């Protein structure tokens, strides 16, 4: 119920009580006053009649006519009594006088002794009560008393009329008061309603509610207090939203997949990386069971264990996503305070595929370097030992062993030199000195260098490019590029195969727009998954095939050197058909 209605009801209650109390008092008061006034009026008129009678006493025969006149003048029943209180004339008597002795009536008795008398009693007509007033006639004559009678009802109805008028005035006044009060209450309660509506809106989270709070009354103070609460809430919410947005963006930008699972194994939060790992897209995870998304047994058992024990779990999973990445998994209990059941766990998934590969590369590198060095070293050692233990005077034998030692030392020197080159390039210590050179000549020189090594394979070598084909490169380093590529192409070629160096000027629309040099072979080719990896240090397409061991660094050095020239290299290949190493150089090299 609205406040103004309650006030109005209270007022109405008070009005009814006051009205009732005053009505009870008023009714008695009014009735009395009206009756008194009536009686006084009747008395004074009767007195006038009596004075006339006293001045001029009527004769016997005039009595009947006179009593009629008096009755009409007083608008009442009039009786004339003689001195013995016998009725000598009565306005109510029709067709003859009814002599009645009224000496015993109290009003007559009073009049006899005091001059005036009043009484109330049943009417002679038998209908209701009548009021009687009797006056003694003091002048000499036959008439001793004048008796006037009116029905009490007449007096009562007069008083009722007065009462009715009064009541209607009072009721009207009450209604007016009510209406005015209602307006007043409305005026008062409107601002209160506004304040309470605003408070409700604030309570339901709508902070847009603003109300002015001028003035110094209680309502203004209430409004001011409410607006202060609002300002406080706005500040706190902004603060919270700010820190939450920061937290959200931190979690969202994390490279690690992050998932929060509560104690009932429902997902509470997942960041973009997690969604990417599980191919979720924008699907909602809100409160879904973790097993809706995750079914990897190892991951699930880590989550189970983390939730059960409240202790952090670590693990590594290699087959979590379809891309075959390796993840380091951390399942950490939500720290809600120790020694109590955990509220949930935070799962972070760190992609260690690259680190793993680098680590493997490093391990392989050390293993490879030691292996590559040990093989020739063993041969050198064996040859030297044999030589020492044999007859040094046999020049043929000695020469054979020394040649072996020489060959293997060269191989070691090559490896060490490659390692030195690689280290020089990787630490940025290598500076090129480009000069205009003919690529065809460079290619032929490189082929000539390698020819003795592969003479047995009977390879068909060709150089196919416009002549002269001038490129601005560092002579030593670019020759190294060609030698390494050709060495590679010859090593893996089939007997009687072809190896070719082709060159053409770029037309600016493809590649880097400069010269393109291609080293092509008819070897076994490179499998698709190795096309990129063969440029890594010590990567071998077929680790089992030890037959054609090189340093394993050649292609890595090639890529570095081509990059240093501002160019790039890639390989195209079809298994069993051969490979094409394509060097694209920038236009500035032309």
């Amino acid at each position: 119920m609205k406040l103004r209605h309650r006030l109005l009801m209270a007022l109405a209650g008070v009005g009814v009580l006051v009205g009732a109390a005053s009505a009870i008092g008023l009714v008695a008061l009014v009735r009395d006053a009206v009756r008194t006034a009536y009686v006084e009026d009747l008395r004074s008129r009767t007195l006038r009649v009596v004075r006339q009678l006293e001045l001029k006493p009527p004769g016997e025969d005039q009595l009947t006519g006179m009593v009629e006149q008096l009755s009409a003048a007083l608008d009442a029943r009039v009786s004339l009594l003689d001195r013995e209180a016998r009725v000598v004339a009565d306005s109510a008597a029709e067709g003859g006088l009814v002599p009645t002795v009224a000496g015993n009536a109290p009003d007559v008795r009073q009049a006899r002794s005091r001059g005036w008398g009043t009484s109330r009693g049943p009417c002679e007509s038998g209908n209701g009560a009548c009021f009687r007033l009797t006056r003694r006639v003091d002048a000499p004559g036959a008439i001793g008393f004048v008796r006037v009678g009116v029905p009490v009802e007449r007096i009562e109805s007069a008083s009722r009329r007065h009462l009715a008028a009064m009541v209607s005035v009072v009721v009207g006044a009450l209604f007016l008061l009510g209406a005015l009060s209602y307006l007043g209450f409305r005026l008062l309660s409107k601002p209160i309603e506004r304040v309470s509506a605003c408070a409700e809106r604030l309570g339901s989270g709508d902070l847009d509610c603003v109300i002015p709070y001028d003035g110094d009354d209680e309502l203004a103070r209430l409004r001011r207090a409410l607006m202060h609460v609002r300002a406080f809430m706005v500040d706190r919410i902004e603060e919270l939203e700010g820190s939450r947005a920061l937290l959200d963006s931190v979690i969202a930008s994390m490279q690690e997949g992050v998932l929060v699972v509560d104690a009932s194994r429902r997902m509470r939060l997942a960041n973009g990386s997690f969604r990417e790992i599980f191919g979720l897209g924008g699907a909602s995870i809100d409160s879904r069971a973790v097993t809706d998304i995750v079914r990897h047994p190892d991951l699930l058992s880590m989550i189970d264990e983390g939730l059960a024990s409240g202790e952090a779990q670590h693990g590594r999973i290699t087959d979590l996503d379809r891309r075959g990445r390796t993840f380091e998994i951390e399942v950490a209990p939500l720290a809600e305070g120790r020694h109590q059941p955990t509220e949930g766990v935070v799962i972070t998934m760190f992609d260690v595929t690259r680190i793993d590969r680098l680590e493997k590369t490093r391990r392989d590198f050390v293993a490879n370097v030691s292996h590559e060095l040990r093989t020739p070293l063993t041969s050198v050692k064996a040859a030297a030992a044999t030589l020492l233990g044999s007859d040094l005077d046999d020049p043929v034998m000695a020469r054979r062993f020394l040649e072996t030692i020489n060959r293997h030392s060269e191989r070691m020197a090559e490896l060490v030199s490659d390692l030195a080159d690689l280290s020089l390039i990787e630490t940025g210590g290598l500076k090129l000195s480009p000069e205009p050179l003919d690529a065809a000549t460079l290619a032929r020189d490189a082929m000539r260098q390698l020819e003795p090594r592969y003479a047995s394979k009977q390879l068909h070598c060709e150089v196919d490019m416009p002549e002269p084909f001038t490129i601005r490169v560092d002579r030593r380093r670019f020759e190294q590029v060609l030698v390494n590529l050709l060495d590679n192409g010859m090593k893996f070629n089939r007997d009687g195969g072809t190896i070719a160096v082709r060159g053409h000027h770029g037309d600016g629309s493809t590649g880097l727009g400069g010269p393109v040099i291609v080293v092509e072979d008819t070897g076994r080719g490179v499998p698709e998954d190795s096309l990129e990896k063969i440029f890594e240090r010590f990567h071998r397409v077929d680790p089992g095939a030890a037959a054609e061991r090189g340093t394993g660094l050649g292609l890595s050095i090639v890529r570095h050197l081509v990059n240093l020239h501002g160019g790039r290299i890639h390989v195209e290949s079809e298994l069993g058909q051969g490979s094409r190493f394509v060097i694209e150089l920038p236009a500035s090299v032309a």
Partner: protein
Amino acid sequence: MERSFETQLEDLSTLIQRMGGHVEQAIGHAVQSLVDRDADLAREVIQQDKQIDQLELDADAHVLHVLARYQLAARDLRFLTTAMKILPDLERIGDQAVNVAERALELLDEAPLPLVVDLPRSANRAREMVRQVLDAFMRHDADAARAVIHMDDDLDAWTRTMFHDLLAHMTKEPSLINRAMRLAFVAKYFERMGDQATNIAEQIVFMVEGTVLKHARIHEDD
């Protein structure tokens, strides 16, 4: 306290997901044990199959419980009957992973034979099909289920090629027959896994759309 109906369905999904996770892992480990000649891993696959079987029994009992306990709407009924039908398929895929592991163990007794055929490719495809079909089941995604059905075509073709290649090797080098035969079995196991994943996919289309895909396919084949 009796758990709510929704929770019961969720529990069933969880059981199937856990089972599926083990099956997926079993496929991966089985082919890895074959390639790496890793006896421990092969034995682990065989050992882990007990867990898959147990999960199937649990899930099955769960389905029956829910069926008996509740008045079901058509949608939930389809979900439950689908769950019932895919459980044995899933369990059989697990069994086939065990078969692969067993062949891997047998091959360990013999001299190493370079993998002349691309079994890992088939294994990856079978595993991917299982992965995607389980995702489709969890997400009620009929399109994803249809995509799985199409993935099976490659697998069938690869199996035919592998049979052909292995046969060629056997004719050329009869001493290889024993080992090559085992590889042929393994190829067949992966093909069967693909078939079962396809079955599951068809069930999922029925679950989501209420249409029976099998009959449509029969008509196509006519």
